[in-house]
C-alpha cells in the first residue's frame, strides 16, 4: 500500500536516459511541459506521446511502473475530468439533466485535460525515476546558479531539497515498519469512522515524528563532523559535463517544441 507511493523514487540503471546530464533532463522536462500546454488536438498530443514513449522505452523504466505512480493522483484526474465535463458548454448539447449539461466541447476539453495531466505526471516521473536525487539537485543548483547574483540562497535550497528527496524513501520505509509493529499489536488503521481513523494514526505519527527528529539531529551532527558550512568554496566530486548527446537531445527537444507550436497555432491540430 505505502510502497505504491513512488514520488521521487529513483530506479537505478545504465541507459542513455540515465546517463544524460541532469541539466539536459530538467530542461527537456520543462520544454516538454511547455509543449504539452501548447498542444491542441490529436496530432500534437500524438507527437508528444510518441516522444514520451520513446523516452520511456530508452529508459527501460517500464510503462507499468509509470502507471503505478499515477495511482495517488487518480482522484485529481477524475475530479478534473468530471469538472471539465460539466463546466464547458461549448459545442452541441448531448445530454441535459437539471443543472448538468454535457456538450461535445465539454467532452473534448475533459478528455484532453486528463490526457495532459497524465502525460505531465509521466514526464516528470521519468525525470525522477532516471535521475538520482543527488544529480537532480546538482542540476537544479547549476541551472539556478545565475540567481546567486540576486542573493537567492540557491545552494541552501538545493541542499534542503536533496535532503528532503533523500529522506522520502527512508520515511516511507519507517512508516511501513512502525505500521507493521502497531498492527502486530492489533492496531486497526482501516476500519471505523473518520474520528476513529484519525485516532488510529496517533500510534503511527508519534513514533514517526520522534524518529524524524532523531534522524535530523544525527544528520546535522554528521554534516558538521564533515565540516559542512554552506556552499561557499565547496567543490564537487562529480563535475557536470555537457557532451554531444546532451546537445543533440536538447536541440531535438527545441525542435519538438517548435513543431508542436507551429502545428497547434498554424493549423489548429
Amino acid at each position: 500500500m505505502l510502497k505504491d507511493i513512488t514520488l521521487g523514487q529513483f530506479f537505478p540503471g545504465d541507459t542513455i536516459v540515465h546517463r544524460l546530464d541532469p541539466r539536459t533532463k530538467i530542461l527537456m522536462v520543462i520544454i516538454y511541459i511547455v509543449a504539452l500546454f501548447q498542444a491542441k488536438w490529436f496530432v500534437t498530443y500524438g507527437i508528444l506521446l510518441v516522444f514520451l514513449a520513446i523516452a520511456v522505452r530508452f529508459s527501460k523504466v517500464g510503462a507499468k511502473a509509470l502507471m503505478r505512480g499515477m495511482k495517488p493522483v487518480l482522484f485529481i484526474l477524475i475530479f478534473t475530468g468530471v469538472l471539465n465535463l460539466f463546466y464547458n458548454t461549448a459545442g452541441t448539447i448531448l445530454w441535459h439533466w437539471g443543472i448538468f449539461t454535457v456538450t461535445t466541447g465539454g467532452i473534448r476539453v475533459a478528455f484532453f485535460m486528463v490526457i495532459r495531466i497524465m502525460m505531465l505526471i509521466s514526464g516528470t516521473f521519468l525525470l525522477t525515476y532516471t535521475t538520482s536525487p543527488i544529480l537532480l539537485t546538482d542540476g537544479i543548483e547549476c541551472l539556478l546558479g545565475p540567481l546567486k547574483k540576486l542573493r537567492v540562497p540557491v545552494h541552501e535550497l538545493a541542499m534542503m531539497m536533496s535532503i528532503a528527496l533523500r529522506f522520502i524513501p527512508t520515511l516511507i520505509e519507517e512508516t511501513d515498519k512502525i505500521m507493521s509493529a502497531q498492527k502486530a499489536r492489533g492496531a486497526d488503521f482501516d476500519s471505523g469512522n473518520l474520528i476513529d481513523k484519525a485516532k488510529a494514526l496517533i500510534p503511527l505519527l508519534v513514533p514517526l515524528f520522534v524518529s524524524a527528529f532523531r534522524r535530523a539531529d544525527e544528520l546535522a551532527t554528521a554534516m558538521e563532523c564533515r565540516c559542512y558550512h554552506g556552499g561557499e568554496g565547496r567543490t564537487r566530486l562529480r563535475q557536470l559535463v555537457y557532451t554531444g548527446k546532451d546537445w543533440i537531445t536538447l536541440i531535438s527537444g527545441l525542435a519538438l517544441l517548435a513543431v508542436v507550436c507551429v502545428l497547434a497555432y498554424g493549423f489548429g491540430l
Partner: protein
Amino acid sequence: MEPILELKQLNCIYSQGTPFEHQALTNIDLSVYPGEYIGIMGHTGSGKSTLIQHLNGLLKPTSGQVLLHGRDIWESKASVRDAKFHVGLVFQYPEYQLFEETVYQDIAFGPKNMKLDQEEIERRVRQAAGFVGLSEDLLQKSPFELSGGQKRRVAIAGVIAMEPEVLILDEPTAGLDPAGRDAILDNIRTYHKSKGSTVLLVSHSMEEIARSVERIVVVNDGRLPFDGTPRSVFSHSKELREMGLGIPQVTQVFQRLKELGLPIEDDCVYTMDEARDALLRLAGKGAV
C-alpha cells in the same frame, strides 16, 4: 501432536512487475508445535524477517498457506486480525514503536485492542512488566524518559501482555550491552517456562541461540536448508560457514581438539555445561 502454526509451500515475491522484483521466500514448509522454543538463524537479507512477518499475517503470501491451528489465517478479514493476537511479534528495535504518555498505557495498547475489560488489562500489564523485569514505579513514567534497554523491555512487554500462544522475537538483543542482552534472554526463557507458550527467537548470534533453544531453523537465500536440534544443525559447520553463519565458539574449539587427535566421543559440543562434562571425561581418561 498437532502443529500450532504451519507454513505450506509458501512463496513470497516482493515488488512483482517492477525492476526491483525479488523472490524473498521459496517453497517454505514449516511446522511449529506447542511449547517449542525455536531459534531462527540466518544472515542479513536471508529472508528471516520476511518469514516471521508471514507467521502473524502481516505479509500476505504470494502463494501458499499459513495455518494457525489448522485453519488458514487468510480465510477472512477477522481471522487475519485474530492471528495477530495469537501470534505475537516483537520487531527489531521495538523501542521505536513506543508512543503513549506512560509506560503502563503503552503496554496496555495491545490488550486494549483485544477489547479486554479494565481489570484483565491491568492484570496483564503488571504481569508482562514483571516478566521483562520492569519495576512498578516505572509504569507511570513516560517511555521517552527511559534508557534504551528499558525501552526495549517496555516494547517486549507490550507484546507479551497480549498473551499470545506463539511469541516471535526478531533480534531482541540487537544493540544491547552484554548484561542487558543476558537479562533479556533470561526474561524470555523464564516467560517460556512459566507460560509454556511457544517462542521463536530470531538471531544471528550462535551463542545466544545455542544456549536456550531446542530446535534451530536455518534460513538461507529464502529457503530452509536445516531444521532440527542444535546438535544436528551445528554438525553442518562447513555449510553454515559458507552461508555466512558460524557455529558457537565452544563447538569450534572442540572440533579443533578432535582434529588434533584428542579422544572426544561427543560429535558436537555446543554449551558450556557440555564442554565441562566433556573436559572432565577427558581428564578422567588421563588424556589431558
